[in-house]
């Protein structure tokens, strides 16, 4: 049985990952008005691209070669960038053309996209689990008195903090970020000021995908990388968004931590039905508190 | 005479904003009451709270003396409180006839008939046809409303409210976006209706409001600043203060 501290730390780790994924999803919903059901698959892509980059084994529909593998931290930057590239293509080809159609169609579209990406992942990398090996210095456990905890997990928490810091800088200090925030609230005003709304939308979608990719890569060294890893993450990130309330940053943080802890607890105590508890929480919130736990969001 | 709708110290807040502030008014049967005021005065919010689309943060709403403050929208509609929206809210994918028909069906009954055919509800269908006729929409009756001209769509909006057999009809800017000819048509219709039921009209068209209303209620920043017959209101200083500088209300100021 895991100790209490372990559960708390695990909860933080899970919460951190959920936070990044959920924010990505939130950004896409806020600016592209799309509930991106393929988000989990993009998260998985982050892990798979990471695997390919780190191990150097490229197996891409015919291309089959090895290139020695990249430094872990280099891959940490490249893998999400690649996912962002995929996101860019998706936005231009699929999302933007669907902008004027009722939301239900785009919802079904991203649902199909999810299967497409999952299928491509399975076809390319196969069903067998893959692993990303973290750098040497992070492979050892960290000792605090009697208690030990994997170093990588601590590093992940640091990574999450860095990502959030970068994100806040982007949204508050850069032109693009400020435009994004304004466009989320008052698009007409923003476009009247001469800002290229289309560029903002593309940027938002790509940013959201990059977030998913980062999370996927960070999780790579923690668990075996499997084609269905996106599914559970998708559901969990929806739960986080629903609980936190769409559009509420503070809400998402609270919710991510909450869901992270619940899942860590459930995994330690009732392994089999861990996810059921998460689903039930989501259902309850959806029905009884549609504005999220802090009441700041807006769910339509 | 007992008011058909009355509100008592009605309040509605959104976060920190007070949209309705201690609004108390009485609406009487067979009377045309117009609610006017600058943008943001709370006119639509008032309609929303009276019809049940929004809840009240304080105060009460009464229908024929009965407190209905917590009643659901559909329950109020069943009682006879019907409305139109500022932005058309109709059944886009259905025909004009079907739009009206569903309202008459709900009013006259029959929704529980699971295996009957719609054509078997004779009274419902006849009633729908007569309303379509009254609105002069016969030519487009079987066309999908999404293909209609905006003015006709507005008529359908009014038609749906009519089909609910209202005792109180609340119209939120019905003439918005209409041509003068269409406006006259609607105005005539509204006046006719005011002889049969209580009509509450929210409008920006000053001339229209002055011409057809029995009484005016003026809202400003969520509160009532004046109430009375049109002539009185046009002479009212508070009202003029509220609209100082507003060209739309210039005619109002000129009648001094």
């Amino acid at each position: 049985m895991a100790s209490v501290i372990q559960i708390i730390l695990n909860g933080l780790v899970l919460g951190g990952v959920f936070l990044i994924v959920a924010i990505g999803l939130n950004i896409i919903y806020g600016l592209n008005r799309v509930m991106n059901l393929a988000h989990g698959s993009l998260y998985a892509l982050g892990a798979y691209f990471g695997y390919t980059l780190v191990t150097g084994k490229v197996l891409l529909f015919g291309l089959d070669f090895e290139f020695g593998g990249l430094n872990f931290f280099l891959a940490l930057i490249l893998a999400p960038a690649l996912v962002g590239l995929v996101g860019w293509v998706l936005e231009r080809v699929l999302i933007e053309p669907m902008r004027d159609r009722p939301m239900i169609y785009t919802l079904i579209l991203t649902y199909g996209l999810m299967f497409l990406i999952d299928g491509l992942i399975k076809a390319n990398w196969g069903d067998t689990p893959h692993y990303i090996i973290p750098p040497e210095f992070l492979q050892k456990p960290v000792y605090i008195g009697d208690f030990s905890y994997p170093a990588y997990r601590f590093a992940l928490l640091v990574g999450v903090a860095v990502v959030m810091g970068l994100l806040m800088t982007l949204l508050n200090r850069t032109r693009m970020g400020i435009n994004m925030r304004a466009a989320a609230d008052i698009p007409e005003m923003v476009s009247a000021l001469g800002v290229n709304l289309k560029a903002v939308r593309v940027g938002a979608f790509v940013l959201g995908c990059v977030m998913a990719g980062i999370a996927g890569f960070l999780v790579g060294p923690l668990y075996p990388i499997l084609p269905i890893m996106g599914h559970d993450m998708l559901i969990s990130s929806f739960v986080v968004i629903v609980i936190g309330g769409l559009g509420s940053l503070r809400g998402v943080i609270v919710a991510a931590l909450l869901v992270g802890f619940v899942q860590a607890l459930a995994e330690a105590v009732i392994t089999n039905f861990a996810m059921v508890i998460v689903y039930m929480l989501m259902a309850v919130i959806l029905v009884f508190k549609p504005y999220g736990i802090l009441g700041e969001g807006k769910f339509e | 005479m007992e008011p058909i709708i009355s509100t008592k110290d009605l309040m509605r807040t959104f976060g920190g904003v007070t949209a309705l502030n201690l609004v108390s008014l009485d609406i009487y049967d067979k009377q045309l009451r117009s609610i006017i005021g600058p943008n943001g005065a709370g006119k639509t919010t008032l309609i929303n709270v009276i019809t049940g689309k929004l809840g009240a943060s304080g105060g009460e709403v009464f229908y024929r003396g009965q407190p209905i403050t917590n009643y659901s929208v559909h329950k109020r509609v069943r009682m006879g409180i019907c409305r139109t929206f500022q932005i058309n809210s109709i059944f886009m994918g259905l025909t004009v006839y079907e739009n009206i028909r569903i309202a008459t069906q709900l009013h006259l009954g029959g929704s529980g008939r699971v295996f009957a055919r719609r054509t078997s509800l004779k009274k419902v269908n006849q009633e729908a046809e007569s309303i379509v006729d009254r609105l002069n929409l016969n030519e487009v009756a079987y066309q999908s409303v999404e293909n209609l001209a905006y003015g006709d769509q507005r008529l359908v909006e009014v038609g749906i409210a009519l089909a609910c057999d209202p005792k109180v009809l609340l119209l939120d800017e019905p003439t918005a976006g209409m041509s003068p000819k269409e406006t006259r048509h609607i105005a005539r219709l509204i006046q006719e209706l005011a002889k049969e039921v209580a009509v509450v009209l929210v409008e920006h068209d000053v001339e229209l409001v002055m011409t057809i209303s029995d009484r005016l209620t003026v809202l400003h920043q969520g509160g009532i600043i004046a109430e009375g017959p049109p002539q009185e209101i046009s002479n009212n200083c508070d009202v003029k203060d509220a609209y100082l500088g507003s060209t739309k209300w210039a005619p109002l100021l000129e009648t001094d």
Partner: protein
Amino acid sequence: MSNRTNQAPGSLLRRWSGAHPLSLGGFVLVVAGMVVLPLVVTNPFYQNLWTRILIFGLLAMSLDVLLGFTGLLSFMHNSYLGLAAYAAGLFTINVNPESLWLAMLVGVVFTMIIAWPVGWLQVRTGGLAFALLTMAFGMMYYTVAWKWHDVTGGDDGLVAAIEHGLPKVAEEGMVPYLDINLGPWNLGNTSDPVHVYYLVLFIVVVAFILTHRMVNSPLGAVLEAIRENEERASFVGINVRRFKLIGWLVACGLAGLAGTLWMFLERNIAPDTMHAFEGAEVLMMVLLGGMGSLWGPFLGAGIFILLKDCLSSATEHWEIYVGLVVIFLVLFLPKGVAGLSSMLRRKPSENK
């Protein structure tokens, strides 16, 4: 002026059914074709395939009632097929291996018992939230079916439960065959694929006719109003929640019916059938065939299942094709095949 469907004299049959002569004739033709089918298709594998088409057609049609007529999207409507199949199967194994009709009743009732409170919760929301809730509950059902292997047999389905020594073990270790009895007459047995086919065909045709009547009834008009504009629907006096629940229950009931038929056909049910992926397949069938047409989903089921059979060599990477087809449909053919046909049939004066 009289309502359009009352106009023009017509045969007694047409006036009774209220259907356009072309569609009534088409319907009769198709049913006749389906009746004759087993005489032409003698390979039991394909007889099974066509029976599956009918069953999934029924499931897809039930989703159409929910989506095409009431306007509510469900990502995992197959859950309710699964629930009924499990209930019917467990009933047959543990309680009564004799009565087919009882098993059918138990399956449908069980599904409704679950669907009612879940639906009650779900109709408090709409649109996206509703769809997400169906996913949440669907995954809950799936997880239970998968993890509660003592009762459900886990991964391999009821077959495994049987192996683990539950009371009535039948031949071949599957759910027992059942006699198809109508009163004192024995019409057949589920061991014969042709008998099963006709049983399914009969039930599906009756279900279709009843559902068709329902969506064209005053109740159907209410559901359509909710689909078109929920807010306005409440503003004409419709208790939107109550009627959404009615639409939901009808859809789940029909799905449950399909589930019991599935049990008679396959004599096993595994959690796979209740997974999100299969839920997407059903949605695809509705899209492919055409939302809101009621018959379109059958066409969609047929095309989908036959296509899957043809491309069986590619089944390994099936997700890719499902994904591509869904994307294609949403982008270019949102109204499905039925949409194509109604576009062709529409007279010029009605076009925009």
